[in-house]
């Protein structure tokens, strides 16, 4: 079974690598370049997991996460937040907004893949 993944980030330079990486790992990958688009794709494609950047124009990752958690139909979606905000207060806020995990940029792609796998394996399908 291929899991569907959404990558939401406004920086094309990271998006290109993440997209390549996740496809190589055998996931079905969708991308979104801002918060609005992310919610749109979430509702349309219902991915199992979303890699969500915090700093996005329009709607921030925090807001997207909050809306996602408020939406009954999207309950089960796993959220891995990716952000350049490294302060522990930001981590706390991300987790409070409903993120399942939090990774601070920069990160190693190997660890990212490992984290994604752990999350998918740990969660009931």
């Amino acid at each position: 079974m291929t899991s569907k993944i959404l990558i939401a980030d406004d920086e094309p330079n990271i998006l290109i690598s993440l997209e390549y990486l996740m496809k190589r790992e055998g996931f079905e990958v969708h991308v979104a370049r801002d918060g609005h688009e992310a919610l749109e794709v979430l509702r349309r494609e219902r991915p199992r997991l979303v890699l969500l950047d915090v700093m996005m124009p329009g709607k921030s990752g925090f807001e997207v996460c909050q809306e996602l958690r408020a939406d009954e139909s999207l309950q089960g979606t796993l959220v891995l937040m990716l952000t350049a905000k490294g302060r522990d207060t930001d981590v706390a806020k991300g987790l409070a907004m409903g993120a399942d995990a939090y990774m601070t940029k920069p990160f190693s792609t190997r660890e990212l893949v490992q984290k994604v796998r752990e999350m998918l394996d740990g969660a009931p399908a």
Partner: protein
Amino acid sequence: MRERALMLATAAVAGAAALLLAVFGLGGGALVWSTLELGQREALAAALGDRMALLFMVAVALCAAVAGAAQPLIRRWIAAPARLGEQALAVVSSGVQRDLEAADGGPALQALAQAFNELARQREQLRRDIADEVARASRGVEQERNRLAALMSELTQSVVVCNLDGRILLYNNRARMQFRALSDAPTLADGAELIGLGRSIYTVFDRRLVAHALESVTQRVQRGAAHPSAQFVTVTRSGQLLRAQMAPVRAAEGDEAAGAISGFVLMLDNITREYEQESERERLLHGLTEGSRASLASLQAAAEMLEDEALEPAMRERFLDVVRDEARAMSRRIAGLAAQNAQGLATRWPLEEMLGADFVQAARRRIEAQTGLATGAGEVDESLWLKLDSYSLLQALGYLAQRLRDEFEVRALHLRLAAAPEGPRARLDLAWTGQAMSTETVMSWEMDPIATGSEASALTVRDVVQRHGGEFWFERDRVRHQAFFRFLLPLAPSAAAQEAAEAAFLRSESRPEYYDFDLFAGRESQRELDDRRLVELAYTVFDTETTGLQPSQGDEIIQIGATRVVNGKLLRGESFDQLVDPGRSIPEATIPIHGITPEMVAGKPRIDEVLPAFHAYARDTVLVAHNAAFDMRFLQLKEERTGVRFEQPVLDTLLLSAVVHPNQDSHRLEAIAERFDITVIGRHTALGDALVTAEVFLKLIPLLAERGIHTLGQAREAAQKSYFARVSY
């Protein structure tokens, strides 16, 4: 008044004469009549009958003559003593030493006046003796207060002390400057509308904010905290950021309320600039960390993807683009940061602002004292303000001079100061004629700990330079056969320089009345203004100079001068003095009166600007003027146009003078001032007249009290009733 009294007295004399004449004439007539025979009576009646009218006219003429003759006597024996009595009362109550005269009275009256003068002199002597005693006793207290005031005025932190009502009872120079910067629209009042003894601090700070801080201070006091102070930061109306630290003032020992809070001290810091710098630093740091994180993430991910053996060439090229792009972005970011950093954002060492020329002076003194070398000042740019750690920099200069003397036998040194062409910095050169030195020597001098005589310091010249975010090098001027050490030092921002210059200016003025501890006692009474006592009110005493006497026919104000009276004290230091461009010509004939020429008002603000400033200055006070109706009419005629209404009560010293001295001929300001022995300086400038009026007013208050006039309401009522009030202006 005087003439009316004389007329009445004369009429009374004439009446008395008529009465006497009637009694004696009719009595005598009746007596004669009774001794006559019938025939004689008829003959007399026939003889007199037709001439009765003539007799009557003779009688009237006689009465008139008597009354006329009595007039000088009345003047001499009734009017003169009355006047003398009034003058005497004035001397008694005002306490002013002034010789009485009874030139129009008789010798006895003159003797009386002399005796009175002698008594007054004795009283004056006694009073002086007592005053000397008291002065000796209170000199100690006074000295302590002055010492406190002197201390306060020199502090570079601004301090304001208020009572629990928020009324200011002490402030210093620095506070005044700061409030001047805070003052928004009516700049003409120069901050004097915000800070002043007896003024409310709540015109600057939100009342709730201060109340909140005071509450937490009170709580801490009750808890017995060692340092019960509170702090708040507020944005003023003009957008400045002020940090205020509040500490309680507690009632002194021996007071019945000892220990209770009777007021508070505010220490104010304008942190606008620091805050801006801090925010800028924060922004840079933020940009550096978060921006770099994002770039690094892209770089790392791309690099890791490039390791993929199976990568197709097109995809490889895209990942390489990412790497190149992010590397460029990071370079740009670092370059931007370095540029801003160079503007002194990185300097954390607290530097003071100092006039460059002053520093050069200090450096020369230091070098001469330390090394005995002759120093000269080369070209020094007098306009430069530096940001310095002057102590360590002086040490460094002294150290270098000493090594030059000891190791290079240098005999004389020159100091130069100029703006650096390469940016917002100054060049400070320590120059000498003679031998150059090797780079190694310069390096070792720069890196050796600074040791001057017995003093050793852990610092090196390089440390000192780094503290300033500056540079230091050795250079040779072959043309002039000179060698020099050059320091690049940061310049102070121009605003700071201006502020410091103002501070220096203010400091050179005589110290005005900046404190009034009596205000501690006065809790604001909840009574209506009219019921409050004259002595406890705050007044704005003002005067205007105008182009003429007819405001309704186009005459305009050309000068407003005002001063404040608070708690029975005249506050000369808080005056308002403003020339006004009337927007019309100034009649030639009036110039000798007020001394204001068209050139003087050219370019001055118009009344539309000045009135709001004056209005703010007069806020929460009672207005006082001499012949106030005149000045008020000028102000009132502008109400509609400027929207500024002076609705506070007004007192008129002319009317009040008439209340206390109804029998005096003149109530002109000069005449009253002379009666009260007030020295008149600068009369016929608006401020000069306002100051005289204020002094007159202060003398009138106790005289009014003797007449049972204690409150504002009573004073206004008495003024209304005075004779002069009924004469139209």
